[in-house]
């Protein structure tokens, strides 16, 4: 990469092991050719840096650029797309306003109708668990149909919606094993399966994808904590 294409200010990304949200941002930065430094958090012992720069949510990822902090992974992805836009770098969101709206719509759908119930379906119990699993499967079906023969949600190249859906490509399979909850049975959602394989084998994605076994060990070590947190959240309802 020529020095003319280096951004003026260094970029730091506050992350934590296993975070699919931070992964989205890493891929975005790499796609745009932005060098960055990772600051890895221990979320059980949050640093002053993290608390100072994300006081509202106290979560990762947080992007630090030119002394300013950007929070919320998809907000950061859009920021990276806009702030580091160059003719030579790929677009993460398409150029056309209608295609951008469509991408944002699907990212919102994935977050609210898929990822949220998916997480809950892994750790909840009884009737609530069944309900979350049903909702997730319905959404997986919708996404499977959306892919309709496309290589990525973004078309021929990886884009915003693929990053929004990244959890389904690597994390879902690991969670299914650790939690013992199968959402994608054999033969189900063929387009989504094929997309997941393409996603995890993508050259740029691979650089910041957590190792499957390490991720499994991480989730296994934390599963009781997830179960009790989800039990609490479901009880509050």
């Amino acid at each position, binding site marked *: 990469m020529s020095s003319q294409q280096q951004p003026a200010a260094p970029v730091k990304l506050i992350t934590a092991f296993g975070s699919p949200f931070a992964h989205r941002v890493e891929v975005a930065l790499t796609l745009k050719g932005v060098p960055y430094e990772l600051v890895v958090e221990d979320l059980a012992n949050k640093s002053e840096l993290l608390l100072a720069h994300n006081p509202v949510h106290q979560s990762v990822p947080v992007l630090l*650029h030119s002394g*300013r902090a950007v929070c919320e992974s998809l907000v950061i992805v859009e920021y990276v797309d806009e702030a580091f836009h160059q003719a030579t770098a790929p677009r993460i969101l398409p150029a056309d306003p209608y295609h951008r709206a469509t991408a944002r719509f699907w990212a*919102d759908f994935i977050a609210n109708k898929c990822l949220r119930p998916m997480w809950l379906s892994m750790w909840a119990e009884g009737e609530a668990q069944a309900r979350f699993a049903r909702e997730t499967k319905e959404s997986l079906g919708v996404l499977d149909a959306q892919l309709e023969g496309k290589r990525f949600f973004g078309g021929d190249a990886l884009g915003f919606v693929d990053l929004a859906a990244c959890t389904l490509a690597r994390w879902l399979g690991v969670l299914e094993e650790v939690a013992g909850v199968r959402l994608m049975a054999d033969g189900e959602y063929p387009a989504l399966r094929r997309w997941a394989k393409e996603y995890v084998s993508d050259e740029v994605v691979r650089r910041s994808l957590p190792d499957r076994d390490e991720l499994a060990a991480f989730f296994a070590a934390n599963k009781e904590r997830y179960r009790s947190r989800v039990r609490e959240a479901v009880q509050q309802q």
Partner: protein
Amino acid sequence: MASPPPPVKLLGTFASLPVHRAEAALRIKGVPYELILEDLKNKSELLLTHNPVHKKVPVLLHGDRAVCESLVILEYIDEAFDGPPLLPADPYDRATARFWAHFIDTKCSRPIWLSVWAEGDRQREALREVKQNLALLEAQLEGKRFFGGDSIGYLDLAACGLAHWIGVIAESGGVSLDTLMSDAEFPNLRRWAAEYVSDEAVRLCLPDRDRLLAYHMANVDKNKERAKSM
């Protein structure tokens, strides 16, 4: 001769906050549109065809395009049409606006609802959370007329619930707005709210307060039930 611009239609309903966001954005941008009112108990083919995933309003129809989800619609309106900008130009300011809009959409409605309709400890806890959230937004308004600066923008539209709906919901539950968002604790927000509802473009598409109050009061029992299952 150039063909006329594709027609713009907005599918909406009376009391809907997300519909107002979209309508106000069209008015601020200066885009002529037709409002089509839906009966949500008897959804039209038009709605079901153009928002098959959620079957909700608002839906923006622009020629043969359909855009759903109010914040997505706001960004589309800003990008697809000429007119005063809704989002700031600077990427960091845009990220900030999107961050707070996301905060409002995910963190604000539930505690507000519970602070009016829940009971005992649950209600007290919710009220505490409401004030915490409002304090953050209060700080964002410091030294500014609107979240968007001198004129109404994306974040003001995202926050419109705090300008109009919060007072109505509170009143419908026999709670004073001052309990949730007092002038003394939140002077910026109260001043902003008054400015927002009296804005020329906003006024024309804000649901009439008395009618909105009647709408919420007609659903008191449903509201209490909803709070129980939240």
